[in-house]
């Protein structure tokens, strides 16, 4: 477990400027919207949903390019020359990417809480909303990591979007409940600051389970790949 945490921490550290820009963006735009005297409930909801979309998209972008970037810079060689299994390496990248999603989710919900308070809406559901965002971030990051083990980053990111869209397209089909994307998308983007809103905890659990399966599949593929970028 220790190599996974070390690799994740290192990965997150490498993305520190990205994290800083993200925080400035979330809190900056919250301030811009929230300090406006004409702020309405619709504006607050729009802000939260928009930022949630970014919080889910961010891990896809970062995770899809992670392996390619490490291979191209050849930094992967020094890491995998240590007592690190390929699966641990991928788990580190996945944890790092998902952690970015966690940072985004927490900051979005803090900003959302403040804006909800400005329009006199209860923010009691926002911690549960943040947890859903984190589960969604873990799911899409694992999809992106899986695809990036055999695809170019651009194609891996596109494949991730298509995979999520395909799940949404299957809505209503029998057995599709096992795929959590639809429930998560509905919950995240249909969110209202209402007391009767319920977080789909089963879908969140399924998302984490699916992320685990995708990590196993990614490991199986990655173990067969040459990690050195090019022949002499």
């Amino acid at each position: 477990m220790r190599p996974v945490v070390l690799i994740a921490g290192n990965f997150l550290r490498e993305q520190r400027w990205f994290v800083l820009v993200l925080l400035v963006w979330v809190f900056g735009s919250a301030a811009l919207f929230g300090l406006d005297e004409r702020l309405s409930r619709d504006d607050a909801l729009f802000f939260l949903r928009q930022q949630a979309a970014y919080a889910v998209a961010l891990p896809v972008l970062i995770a899809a390019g992670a392996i390619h970037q490490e291979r191209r810079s050849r930094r992967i060689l020094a890491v995998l020359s240590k007592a690190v299994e390929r699966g641990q390496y991928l788990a580190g990248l996945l944890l790092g990417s998902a952690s970015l999603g966690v940072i985004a989710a927490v900051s979005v919900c803090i900003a959302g809480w403040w804006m909800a308070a400005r329009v006199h809406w209860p923010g009691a559901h926002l911690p549960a909303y943040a947890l859903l965002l984190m589960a969604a971030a873990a799911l899409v990051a694992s999809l992106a990591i899986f695809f990036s083990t055999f695809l170019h980053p651009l194609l891996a990111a596109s494949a991730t979007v298509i995979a999520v869209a395909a799940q949404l397209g299957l809505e209503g089909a029998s057995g599709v409940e096992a795929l959590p994307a639809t429930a998560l998308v509905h919950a995240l983007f249909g969110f209202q600051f209402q007391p009767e809103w319920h977080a789909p905890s089963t879908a969140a659990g399924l998302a984490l389970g699916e992320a685990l399966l995708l990590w196993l599949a990614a490991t199986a593929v990655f173990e067969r790949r040459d990690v050195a970028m090019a022949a002499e």
Partner: protein
Amino acid sequence: MAAVLEFEGITKHYRRRVGLRPEPLVALEDFSLAVERGEIFGFLGPNGAGKTTAIHIAMGFTRPTRGAGRMLGRAFGHAPTRARVGFLAENVALYHRPARKLVAFYGALNGMRGRFLRERVRQVLEELELTADAGRNAGRFSRGMQQRVGLAQALVNDPELLMLDEPTSALDPLGRVAVRELLLKARERGKTVFLSSHLLSEVELICDRVGILHRGRLVRVAKTGDLLERHDQSELAVRNVAPAMFPGAEARDGVVQFTVPRAAQRAAIERVWAAGGEIVAVNPARRSLEEIFVEMTSESGSNQ
């Protein structure tokens, strides 16, 4: 003596894209080699010979098309075994972190921790003369300094086997001497060094054995001394004779040196004595590693 690194009939084919069509590129062909414990093995070959590919296969970065191998008694790619190995890549690429923290990070990936890790990091940084810069961002170091940090991360776990791909290519002469001494010290402590290098003079100085790779095939493996000595020729150093007496003789500081076939050695000595000269030394003639390398890797040499 036990082999710590064994390549057994390894073949590696890559696919190189030429236009729209992928073409096979042979990096290694039926490559077999055993490196014994406690030796410094020099791995030579021109660019594109397959040296880096062989090292990458041993480290588990690349899978062979055919064949197998063992490192410290375990199949290539066995992750826990790599905790006993130090590796330095040809082109060092470092994360943007202070050198001390970076070396500690790599040590921690090998399961090191606490005071032991801190002490080892301090030691290797000191050995590589990086102590003064240990707090600076290693990603912004010059190439030479990055190579030293690369060596530090390879040495931090006090490895039994060091796999070094061009470890001194970016170093200045003083840095090269320091690394050479470091490798000799490692050998004294029973460590094994697998050294890929283009610096033939360096290889000649420190390697116990040398292997020459050409177009993916091992064309020669021998003890460095055996490789350099010409057993059919003797080199004589004499005094008080005219250089003109022997074809090709050179005089330096009053000593005349020349080479004769081993069979003519006795006759040459008698001629020196007959001329009133004095024999200073008689040794097997030596060639430079560069001469041998060129001979082995030239078209005609490699076809022999």
